[in-house]
């Protein structure tokens, strides 16, 4: 396995190179799709093999070559595959492969398909580096790499200026987070003398470190996570990122890249556990984001924007779980979320495909007859995310809520549950407005309506099955159904240092309370689904257009004006400062001083030049005066 391990990331890189270099001129679209998808499939199969190996004989680590070696900063280009990495690898390559297959159908009419698959493969490569690296620098490679791919893919249709801006925004906001991560890595190096996981985490128990330093490290790393995983205050890029093709939204902006922040903190759980303050910050940011985004999601009319805010909200929930110390629960939700959110995005893609590019749900309606498979799939996704009993989201959210109740108390639990409730509300609204009622599009669109080809529906069906059954991965222990808490046990396996990758989290509340919490959540979800059906499935009940919103609705529809605030606070002042500095400080000020020095020398020269007037008497007079002065100074 060791020798095959590097193939897992490098095969997609190979796919990127082949498609990127030859795709435009030499390959048909089918070939491009095959070359793009095959490496990911192979990587997935190899990841399964890795999984088996990790299960039987523990973590695998491979060092390819010493990447950087300066002083005591020794950074190998190396991989470490433990329980956590291999799980992320399975998600990335597995869901990634399904989305590749889906894209063959979805992007078939696009002339830039070769580019699309090249970028997707590059993304898979970067994401695999991120999760497979055995040190923080490798993680950072992947971290920035996925940001780059995100930039390339959001701006995929580059003729549109707005898309280009959205892509830039995503990259720059990510970079703000990256700076935090980078500084965090510096501090780790300074504190631990190494940035390799094995050496850093093995010192945690023995090294005397001040609480302030640990908190600083954790917060700096968390800044990185905030940028990448779209949390307050750096979340505004994610909704704009919907400018990219829909498979991109599914793969990067729902299933994998945005969960990198979760991975980072889960990876560093040993550090975070030492800093209650940092955990607290993580929990607060997560909860706030979860609620904030959910409110915005209530009044969005763009099918992808709703899903985007839902993603932000769900990510907030995962951070809440992390902040509560429920690392494996967060990873569990990462997994189920990857299933159902990818499913929802791809389903939305199928709808958009059928509607000829239309994304406004006000112009849809009644699609369940024309798109039966898509409808059922979307229904499953919606129910899963809303917490419909026994679907995957039900279990993963419930586990998080239980931890929140245990560690944070009733108020935290109530606030988190409001987030869950709102999720159910806007998702049901989305489902009913899109698929029920009357068709509200144009006649053209009506004739064009068709179910998507098999290459798109088959991945959808697989994801739907996973969304339904995903809960089995980590059944709550109080239900006493085997395998109970399988995933938590998996992550509690011994990592590279012989210690658990993620220690088992204990829930200190008794089974009856847990049953009660679960019951409340179930009741709420069912009620919302039922009430939502009544409210939104009526043919005449159309969401209000953005322009006609009022009151709170207007606030939600305009996303709390956060973009406008950022523009006013940062973007515009910096742009103005740029011009001011250029004209006043640089050209007029500093350069003026330099030119001033030059000019005054010239001026002085002009002044002295007048002495040389060519008049002999004048010179002689000077000479005699000089002699007289000299004599006087000597003799007088």
């Amino acid at each position, binding site marked *: 396995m060791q020798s095959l391990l590097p193939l897992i990331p490098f095969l997609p890189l190979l796919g990127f190179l082949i498609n990127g270099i030859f795709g435009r001129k030499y390959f048909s679209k089918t070939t491009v799709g095959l070359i793009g998808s095959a490496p990911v499939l192979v990587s997935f199969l190899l990841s399964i093999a890795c999984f088996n190996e990790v299960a039987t004989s523990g973590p695998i680590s491979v060092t390819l070559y010493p990447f950087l070696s300066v002083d005591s900063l020794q950074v190998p280009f190396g991989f470490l595959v433990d329980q956590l990495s291999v799980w992320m690898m399975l998600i990335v390559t597995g869901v990634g492969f399904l989305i590749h297959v889906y894209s063959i159908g979805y992007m078939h009419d696009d002339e830039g398909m070769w580019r699309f698959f090249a970028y997707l493969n590059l993304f898979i490569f970067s994401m695999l580096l991120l999760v497979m690296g055995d040190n923080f620098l490798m993680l950072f490679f992947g971290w920035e790499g996925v940001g780059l791919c995100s930039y390339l893919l959001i701006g995929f249709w580059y003729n549109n200026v707005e898309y280009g801006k959205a892509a830039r925004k995503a990259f720059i906001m990510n970079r703000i987070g990256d700076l935090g991560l980078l500084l965090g890595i510096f501090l780790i190096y300074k504190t631990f003398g190494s940035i390799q996981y094995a050496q850093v985490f093995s010192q945690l128990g023995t090294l005397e470190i001040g609480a302030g330093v640990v908190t600083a490290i954790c917060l700096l790393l968390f800044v990185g996570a905030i940028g990448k995983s779209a949390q307050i205050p750096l979340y505004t890029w994610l909704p704009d990122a919907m400018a990219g093709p829909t498979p991109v939204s599914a793969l990067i902006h729902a299933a994998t890249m945005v969960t990198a922040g979760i991975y980072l903190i889960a990876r560093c759980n040993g550090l975070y556990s030492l800093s209650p303050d940092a955990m607290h910050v993580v929990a607060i940011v997560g909860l706030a984001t979860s609620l904030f985004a959910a409110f915005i999601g209530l009044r969005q009319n763009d099918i992808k924007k709703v899903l985007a805010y839902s993603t932000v909200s769900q990510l907030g929930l995962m951070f809440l779980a992390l902040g509560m110390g429920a690392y494996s629960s967060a990873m569990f939700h990462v997994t189920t979320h990857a299933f159902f959110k990818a499913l929802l995005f791809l389903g939305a893609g199928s709808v958009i495909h059928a509607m000829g590019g239309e994304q406004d749900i006000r112009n849809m309606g009644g699609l369940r007859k024309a798109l039966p498979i898509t409808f059922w799939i979307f229904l499953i996704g919606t129910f899963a995310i809303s917490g419909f009993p026994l679907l995957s989201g039900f279990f993963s959210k419930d586990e998080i809520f239980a931890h929140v109740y245990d560690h944070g108390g009733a108020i935290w639990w109530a606030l988190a549950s409001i987030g869950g409730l709102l999720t159910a509300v806007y998702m049901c609204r989305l489902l009913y407005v899109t698929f029920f009622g009357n068709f509200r599009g144009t006649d053209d669109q009506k004739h064009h309506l068709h179910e998507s080809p098999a290459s798109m529906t088959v991945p959808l069906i697989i994801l739907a099955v996973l969304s339904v059954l995903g809960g089995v991965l980590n059944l709550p222990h109080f239900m006493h159904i085997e395998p109970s808490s399988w995933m938590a046990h998996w992550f509690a396996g011994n990592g590279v240092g012989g210690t658990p990758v993620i220690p088992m989290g204990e829930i200190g509340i008794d089974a009856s309370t847990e049953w009660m919490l679960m019951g409340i959540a179930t009741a709420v979800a069912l009620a919302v689904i039922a009430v939502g059906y009544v409210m939104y499935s009526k043919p005449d009940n159309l969401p209000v257009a953005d322009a006609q919103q009022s009151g709170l609705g207007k606030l939600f529809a305009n996303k709390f004006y956060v973009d406008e605030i950022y523009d006013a606070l940062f973007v515009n002042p910096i742009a103005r400062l740029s011009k001011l500095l250029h004209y006043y400080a640089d050209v007029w000020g500093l350069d003026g001083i330099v030119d001033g020095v030059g000019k005054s020398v010239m001026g002085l020269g002009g002044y002295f030049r007048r002495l*040389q*007037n*060519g*008049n*002999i*008497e004048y010179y*002689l*007079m000077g000479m*005699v005066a000089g002699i007289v002065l000299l004599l006087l100074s000597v003799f007088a």
Partner: protein
Amino acid sequence: MLEAVPIEYFLYLCTLLFVIGVFGVLTRRNAIVVLMCIELMLNAVNLLLAAFSTYLSDAQGQILVFFIMVVAAAEAAVGLGILVMIYRNTKSTDISLLDQLRN
């Protein structure tokens, strides 16, 4: 007999001659007069050299006088030559006109 004339008198006379020369050079614009004033200054120095030569009984001073006379003659010849050329070009011997190199 020369001993009867104190050396100071020579000094006064020569200084007077020299200052007259300097004054002429500074104030007169006629190039011929300027040249003559320069000769006057030189001769003032010559006189002083000769006086001191006798006073100190050292012949070197008088030898130097001859050198200076030779140089002065050469200088006068060159100076007058230039002056003639200038006169031919400008029909004037006014030295204040001679600032053509200035710009």
